């Protein structure tokens, strides 16, 4: 009986030992091939995540990095991979783990996807499709290591906990609005502020003032509303087209660091100029010299408004709005160009880009709409005085300098959400 008990104890210990052994998992080495560009802010974020977070969580992970902006060999390797493996390479960061590729970076989506893939490849042997092209010894072929089950935490629950704590960190409580996510809230706020400041640009306002002063001389209220509204809508449309074109140009050129730095320098220069104007330019009238352009514009506008046929007048006003706004873009291109660069940094879906541009234009047109509606209601000429324009210059200049510095030195700070 005593022997039987000893045997039983031995069998129990043996079973426990085997059970512990079976809990220890087989973990396969995982190779990640990371293609990035110097100066690309999303690449920098992904790189930090790969080395500082993912490698710590999964010691079986090895990251191979390839810079493609300055290294032709690496760029050709990516091109070759794209052709051979039928990959759709739309830009960097571009990461390949196992037989799956990941383009771009999103703070909320990418970390979870990468964790999931690395976890999957460390427990199920993934084919390393890149190794044959890079000449790396495919570590995946080596004997699987046996490691303590430290990474046996369910990646799903870990992902959720991490993203929850990340999200909580960014939550702020605002009066009237309650608790909001600071990151997802920052871009709309920035859009509204820059749009409104751009609207105070005198270049954008003077043509509308001319038009309103001419409309006030009319007796037909309906015609006044139609022509004024047509001018405002056409102006907004031209601005929208310009901003979309500029945004697409920046996206087309990619996140080439020197373009971001040039836009940053333009922002710095524009900001310094605006503050200098606020501090030293006390002149708030119209210079008589060199006013011939304005005179011609006024005369043309006068003849259009006086046109008997409403349709001809309407066509003339829309054409004029296009022409004037295109010319005046030179004067007010600074803020939209800087804003679209910030927008491009945030790597949003196309529809979101257009929505943000529409929001910008709505706030850009706010002062024009205010002047137009107040004048039409009261039939008294209203204008935004230079006092407000000057304050807008100070605020706008400060924001431009801040954005300029961030574009040059800390572009990742402008990537919201």
């Amino acid at each position, binding site marked *: 009986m005593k022997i039987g008990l000893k045997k039983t104890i031995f069998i129990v210990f043996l079973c426990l030992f085997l059970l512990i052994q079976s809990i220890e998992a087989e973990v396969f080495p995982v190779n990640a091939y990371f293609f990035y560009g110097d100066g690309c802010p999303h690449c920098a974020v992904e790189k930090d995540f790969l080395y500082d977070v993912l490698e710590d969580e999964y010691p079986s992970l090895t990251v191979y990095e390839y810079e493609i902006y300055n290294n032709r060999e690496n760029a050709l390797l990516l091109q070759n991979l794209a052709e051979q493996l039928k990959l759709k390479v739309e830009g960097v960061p571009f990461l390949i783990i196992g037989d799956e590729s990941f383009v771009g970076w999103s703070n909320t989506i990418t970390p979870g996807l990468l964790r999931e893939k690395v976890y999957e490849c460390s427990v199920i042997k993934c084919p390393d499709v890149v190794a044959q092209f890079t000449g790396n010894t495919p570590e995946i072929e080596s004997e699987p290591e046996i490691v303590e089950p430290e990474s046996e935490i369910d990646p799903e629950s870990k992902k959720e906990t991490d993203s929850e704590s990340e999200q909580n960190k960014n939550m702020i409580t605002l009066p009237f609005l309650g608790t909001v996510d600071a990151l997802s809230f920052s871009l709309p706020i920035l859009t509204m502020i820059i749009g409104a400041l751009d609207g105070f640009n005198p270049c954008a306002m003077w043509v509308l*003032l*001319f038009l309103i002063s001419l409309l006030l001389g009319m007796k037909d209220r309906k015609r006044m509303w139609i022509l004024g509204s047509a001018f405002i809508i056409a102006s907004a449309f031209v601005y929208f087209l310009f901003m979309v074109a500029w945004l697409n140009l920046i996206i087309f050129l990619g996140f080439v660091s020197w373009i971001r730095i040039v836009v940053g320098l333009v922002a710095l220069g524009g900001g310094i100029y605006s503050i200098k104007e606020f501090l030293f330019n006390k002149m708030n*009238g*119209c*210079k008589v010299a060199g006013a011939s352009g304005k*005179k011609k514009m006024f005369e043309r506008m006068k003849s259009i408004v006086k046109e008997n046929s409403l349709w001809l007048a309407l066509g003339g006003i829309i054409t004029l709005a296009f022409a004037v706004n295109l010319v005046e873009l030179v004067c007010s291109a600074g803020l939209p160009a800087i804003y679209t660069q910030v927008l491009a940094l945030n790597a949003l879906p196309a529809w979101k880009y257009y929505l943000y541009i529409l929001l910008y234009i709505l706030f850009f047109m706010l002062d024009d709409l205010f002047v137009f509606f107040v004048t039409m209601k009261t039939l008294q000429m209203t*204008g935004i005085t*230079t*006092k407000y324009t000057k304050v807008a210059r100070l605020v706008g200049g400060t924001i431009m300098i801040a954005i300029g510095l961030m574009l040059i030195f800390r572009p990742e700070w402008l990537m919201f959400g």
Partner: protein
Amino acid sequence: MKVLKFGAAWCPGCIIMGPRWKEIEAEHSWLQTEYYDFDKDKEAVEKYNINDTLPTFVFLDKESNEFLRLNGEVEKEKLVEIIIQNKDK
């Protein structure tokens, strides 16, 4: 006292000053003002040597001597203060 106002249809500052003067003139009915268009009233423009900035406001005393000249957009309060101070000139 008389105020000569020089402006132009193509000058936004002049457009903004229009209603401001209208209010002042309504509140101070004794005040004499005259408006001159920079492009049309060449004689007055040359006489008062308006060749730099618009709008320009020339303040004349009873003897038609200029005692003050203001350029650009001017706050209504400032204009009213000047007008009241120089009412008897």
